[in-house]
């Protein structure tokens, strides 16, 4: 299952894009309560949002974004059927992407 959820909503001709990604976003300074070992850093480094084939957002993130990051953006205009693609890469090189179709 994809780790990315995308929702879109039209209001006043503009389109709000919301996304929720499931990711631990560990910054590497937390300790495991059971073993008292440091939990290694594991966070999303880069997030990209594409509208059809054009990149509209590139975000460099640090570990001080909350666990299971949520973002929202507002697109000035878009046609029904346009594709919104969101992808991420984390510091371990893991990655995922998901596509959503505007209504």
């Amino acid at each position, binding site marked *: 299952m994809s780790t990315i959820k995308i929702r879109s909503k039209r209001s006043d001709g503009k389109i709000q894009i919301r996304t929720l990604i499931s990711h631990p976003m560990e910054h590497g300074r937390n300790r495991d309560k059971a073993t008292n070992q440091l939990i290694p850093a594991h966070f999303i480094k880069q997030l990209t949002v594409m509208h059809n084939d054009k*990149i509209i957002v590139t975000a460099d993130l640090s570990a*001080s974004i909350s666990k299971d990051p949520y973002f*929202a953006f507002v697109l000035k205009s878009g046609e029904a059927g346009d594709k919104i693609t969101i992808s991420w890469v984390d510091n371990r090189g893991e990655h995922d992407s998901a596509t959503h179709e505007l209504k």
Partner: protein
Amino acid sequence: MRGNRRKFMQQTLVLTAASSPLFGALLFPEAAGAEIAVAKPVLSLLEAGLKDLFNGADLTETDQIGIEIPIIAENGAVVPLTITSSLSQVKAIYILVEKNPIPLSAKFVLAPELEVFISARLKMAETSDVWVIAESDEGLFSARKKVKVTIGGCGG
């Protein structure tokens, strides 16, 4: 008994004298303290971060950046934040939390197809200012808001 006591006192004095350089350092720490002061970072984390990011370029404070964030965050692990701006041609938005171990939280590069609007959720280690810096064609603009954190975000 008397002889023993005298002997003990003499020995104690001798010992104290022998170790006096050490005692001196403990009692008069100016000399030792000077080194610690030098080792302290001259810039705060935030200032250092800003210098790294913008090469020391000037920031203009503006009220054209709106930051919607709770004044009191009950849980520092999840602090919802919404940024809007009436500035034109904003190319990038930086979010910095002044007292986090790594102040720069995120950098968003926005295409002109987007409104200047970002929602995100931040972690905050402690009560501190949240800075939003917008980079536009006309330079760098900043706005900040203080957020009081009652439980730190370090616990994840």
